[in-house]
């Protein structure tokens, strides 16, 4: 397992995401209300670039004609078929038992600790005063 520094933490604001490449693999890094999550940019259903989908909430209902949207920013809707995945767990909302997006371990680390290594910096220099997103693969 190698630690990859993939982005500056402050470049991914709450509610947003960034697609990064780690060892030839595309990974979406999401900031959900201050917590970071990393998901493979590949829909387990049909192979779409999942992390290019919509970051949104969960449409729920108390019965016909009753609509509400909850948990805004916690779900990802695939840009092809619209299947919904929970960003925190990678689980499909419709098929939680059998369908899940691959997740990666993600940390926020101060530049101070990172400059000491060991890590693989992918694309940019690490500065002591910044915080960085680190993915273990």
């Amino acid at each position, binding site marked *: 397992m190698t630690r990859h520094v993939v982005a500056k933490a402050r470049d991914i604001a709450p509610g947003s995401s960034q697609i990064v490449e780690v060892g030839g693999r595309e990974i979406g890094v999401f900031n959900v209300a201050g917590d970071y999550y990393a998901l493979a*940019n590949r829909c387990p259903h*049909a192979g779409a670039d999942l992390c290019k989908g919509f970051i949104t909430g969960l449409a729920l209902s108390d019965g016909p004609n009753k609509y509400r949207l909850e948990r805004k920013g916690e779900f990802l809707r695939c*840009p*092809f*078929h*619209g299947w919904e995945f929970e960003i925190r767990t990678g689980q499909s909302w419709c098929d939680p038992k059998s369908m899940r997006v691959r997740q990666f371990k993600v940390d926020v680390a101060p530049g101070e600790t990172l400059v000491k290594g060991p890590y693989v910096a992918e694309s940019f220099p690490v500065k002591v005063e910044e915080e960085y997103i680190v993915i273990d693969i």
Partner: protein
Amino acid sequence: MNAPLRAQKASQTLMIVDCDIHPIQRSAKDLYPYLSKAWQEHIESFGAHVRQGMTEQIMWPRMMASGQRADAYPPQGGPPGSDYDLMKRQHLDPNGVEFGMLVALSKGGMEERNQPFARALSSAVNDWQLHDWVERDARLRAGIVVTGEDPEHAVAEIEKRAGDRRFAQVIISPRSSEPIGRRRYWPIFAAAERAGLPIGLHPAAVPGGNPSSGAGWPTYYMQEHHTFTTGSQAAAVSLVMEGVFEQFPKLRIAMIESGFSWAPALGWRMDRIWERMRKETPHIKRPPSEYMREHFWFATQPMEEPENPQDIIQMFDWIGWDHIMFSTDYPHWDFDDPRQVIKVRLTDEQREKIFRANAKALYQLS
């Protein structure tokens, strides 16, 4: 980008024929080079006149990004499917498309009520497919979009294009004003048979004027989506029971974006009812399912996803392995990826048939 990595893999493993690709105009202005000044002015002053409550949009708003792949919107604007470079970069190259069958929905098919205008649009869309698409990329094949409700012009348009190998089929919508097997449409079938061209039946999103469910108009897109399947079953029943294949024994029908797994059950059902009712249709000489097996080819998208994945093999067995053709529906939201679409193991021969050989044989692609 994932695309280059995948492209490499795809070109090493499989070339495909994609039987359903949707090109579209950035705006009606793309058709102006192929329309008279008078029709250009008609577009500016009046626009389309259709059989539904709103113009220039579909009545059941789609789910994802207006029914398109959200990643297929050209960065410089225009609808998905309007930018050749993006289509090439996003689909044709990375997915190993050896031949791509264009299905130019909207503008010129069945939906325009003004018949002189529909005639002009039909010819213009066909010219546009050639000049803006096929001449830019020899992998693409046009489909002759005809005015289904105006068979006289449809025949003229087929005859005008017949012999030009860049046109591989005749495109009509099964959501016609009358069931598609009825005699008013027979001149189209006769012309297609004479020209050696299959008929590509692809449902148009704009209806032919009839409520889509048999019991009136649906409320939700979820329901309207399903009527593509039931509407295609109605088209199959009509073509068979009107005796179209007795009259035109060489006619071949490609069912595109119509589903396919309904076909075996519908064939069985038709056979059982025909046994009891056959005196009503003396022109039907054989069990209806036999006509279906011989005359229909099915494009796979949207791929069926059975609860037991192996049942897809059963479906192909029942329909016939020579009659299944892969399609993606690019750039629409329910796009099927050739690498992902079949979840079970196929033999090399089965794979070759579905992804390439069947379509090449049907459309005489080389």
